[in-house]
């Protein structure tokens, strides 16, 4: 090494400092005073803002965290990633921005974590845009009422509890009652109908084997190309589980704000609340009811309020939400379920008893509701489903009398028979969403009495025969019906066609 003159070194150093004066100023910095359980406590950085990203310089590189507790003496920062890399004494710098995630079409077909990093082994994702994870919901004047249908393909839902674009419809029930299945069928139906809806499935603390199976099924059904999966497993830090729904919503807002339509599935928000409880307790926030922090309602309300139907001035895009909540022993009056029920625009209640009886999807017609209702229904489905809810509710009242078959009057017997047939009709296999014409034809046929002579256990076979015949012999009419714009009125040509075909199909199954 050549001899270095100290004077030269000094000159170089002064030049370097002078150069730095032009572009860089002093950075706000602090020091980690203690770390553990995913939380780093930082001293200094009085200028840190709430939810601002902090960069911790560890021996193994930079680890990011975000500031959640801004206290007089220290900042509680939740670490994004492995907290074992962080040690007391590490320097912390402000990144100068709040947490953002990459958003855009580049994410379609990919499985990512809440920071937008790929988990599917594919190439790195480079998006042109990012969106903040936390963002204020659209104001009143920026919204329009929900008026476009979001067809799930599940007859029981589309007929009785229709969902519209921009609506928040909760799916609630005990474990293993088919909640995720309803959400997946809705996603599959968007691809089947070639609707322009982008699906975003947020797995919060779900078993990774379940997520992998779901991704595989979506690929088989050809849905993955219009889907983004944001996945967090049970072994991920609570901070990632906490961020996942917000990150997913940020991705959905990208499409909404461009005038497009997106569907969010949050599976499930119960685990999200539990993760937030864990974080809050570790941040030493005071526990409230069931040890949840006092702002657990705000946790979900600010998330779900971002799902909306935008006004025409803002592009008329929409973000529809299907949050999922898991109950214990069917208790929908528990803390978190009641919170989310009061936030959403309706709920689909899945009952264990119905599931065990073989009624799948196990949707409780009595406890489920859609507060948007007919405004979000196609004219065709609306015209045939008027008697459906009434028929089922009357059947529910009389169901316990079904065992007294021969001792009942004719009117009661007829109601019970009709109810049993409607219940059987609404059963639907998984991954087989029904189109508008299929739903209209099936419901109309039963309502018109065409299947009254068919034994209950043959109703599905009769339905299949009807739909096959209609599609084979009257395809054009069914394609027209599938547009959903025309009502199926009793004396209309299509109604007479369906009734005639149904009676013919029923003959082969009547006992």
């Amino acid at each position, binding site marked *: 090494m050549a001899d270095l003159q100290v*004077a030269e070194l000094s000159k170089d*150093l002064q030049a370097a*400092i*002078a150069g*730095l004066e032009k572009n860089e*100023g*002093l950075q706000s910095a602090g020091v980690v005073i203690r770390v553990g359980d995913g939380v780093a406590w930082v*001293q*200094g950085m009085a200028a840190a803002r709430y939810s601002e990203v902090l960069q911790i310089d560890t021996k193994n590189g930079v680890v990011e965290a975000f500031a959640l507790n801004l206290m*007089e003496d220290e900042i509680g920062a939740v670490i994004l990633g492995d907290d074992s890399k962080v040690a007391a004494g590490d320097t912390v710098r402000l990144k100068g921005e709040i947490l953002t995630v990459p958003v855009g079409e580049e994410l379609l077909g990919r499985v990512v974590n809440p920071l937008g990093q790929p988990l599917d082994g594919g190439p790195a994702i480079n998006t042109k845009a990012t969106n903040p994870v936390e963002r204020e919901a659209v104001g009143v004047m920026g919204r329009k009422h929900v008026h476009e249908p979001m067809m799930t393909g599940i007859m029981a839902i589309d007929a009785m509890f229709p969902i519209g674009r921009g609506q928040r419809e909760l799916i609630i029930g005990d474990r293993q009652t088919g909640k995720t299945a309803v959400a997946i069928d809705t996603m599959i139906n968007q691809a089947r109908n070639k609707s322009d809806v982008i699906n975003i499935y947020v797995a919060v603390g779900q078993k990774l084997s379940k997520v992998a199976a779901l991704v595989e099924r979506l690929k088989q059904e050809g849905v993955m190309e219009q889907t983004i999966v944001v996945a967090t497993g049970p072994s991920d830090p609570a901070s990632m589980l906490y961020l996942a729904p917000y990150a997913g919503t940020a991705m959905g807002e990208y499409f909404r704000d461009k005038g497009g339509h997106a569907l969010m599935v949050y599976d499930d928000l119960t685990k999200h609340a539990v993760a937030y409880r864990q974080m809050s307790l570790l941040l030493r926030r005071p526990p409230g009811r069931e040890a949840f922090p006092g702002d657990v309602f705000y946790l979900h309300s600010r998330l779900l309020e971002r799902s909306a139907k935008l006004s025409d001035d803002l592009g008329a895009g929409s973000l529809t939400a299907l949050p999922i909540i898991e109950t214990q022993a069917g208790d929908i009056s528990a803390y978190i379920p009641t919170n989310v029920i009061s936030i959403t625009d309706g709920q689909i209640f899945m009952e264990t008893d119905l599931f065990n009886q073989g009624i799948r999807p196990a949707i409780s017609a009595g406890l489920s509701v859609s507060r948007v209702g007919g405004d979000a229904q196609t004219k065709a489905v609306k015209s045939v489903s008027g008697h459906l809810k009434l028929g089922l509710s009357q059947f529910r009242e009389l169901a316990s009398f079904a065992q007294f078959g021969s001792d009942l009057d004719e009117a009661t017997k007829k109601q019970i028979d009709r109810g049993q047939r409607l219940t059987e009709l609404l059963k639907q296999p998984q991954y087989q969403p029904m189109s508008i014409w299929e739903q209209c034809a099936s419901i109309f046929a039963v309502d018109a009495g065409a299947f009254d002579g068919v034994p209950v256990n043959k109703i599905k076979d009769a339905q299949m025969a009807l739909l096959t015949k209609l599609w084979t012999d009257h395809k054009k009419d069914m394609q027209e019906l599938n547009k959903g714009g025309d009502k199926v009125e009793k004396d209309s040509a299509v109604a007479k066609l369906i009734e005639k075909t149904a009676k013919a199909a029923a003959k082969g199954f009547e006992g």
Partner: protein
Amino acid sequence: MATKLSRRKLAGNAAARFSSGENKKAILQELAAYLIDTNRKKEAELIVRDIEAMLADAGTAIGTVISARPLSSDAVSTVESFVKAQNAAVKTVVLRERIDKTLIGGVRLELPGHQLDASVKAKLEQLTV
């Protein structure tokens, strides 16, 4: 139960008394006694940092300049001028010097609540990132 005084309040009190010219030894004795009495000796270093931060707001910036090789007096003066330029409230700059050969070149300046890393090591790490 006695209210626990926050570190910032303790530091603020000490900094104000330093600035007003009170006897430094006496202030530190009182502070040490309080920390022992309240079993908060572990917070001593943190309180020193808080005191330095408050003294900086009051006009006296105490910092550490770290370099790979000893700095000349001119270089130190340049750093002091830089610190004054960053904050108009600073009238006096007191710098501690430290050598860290791992920086390779350049300097790192640590001030209360702020940092400037102009070392070659930091630039290489940025390239890696």
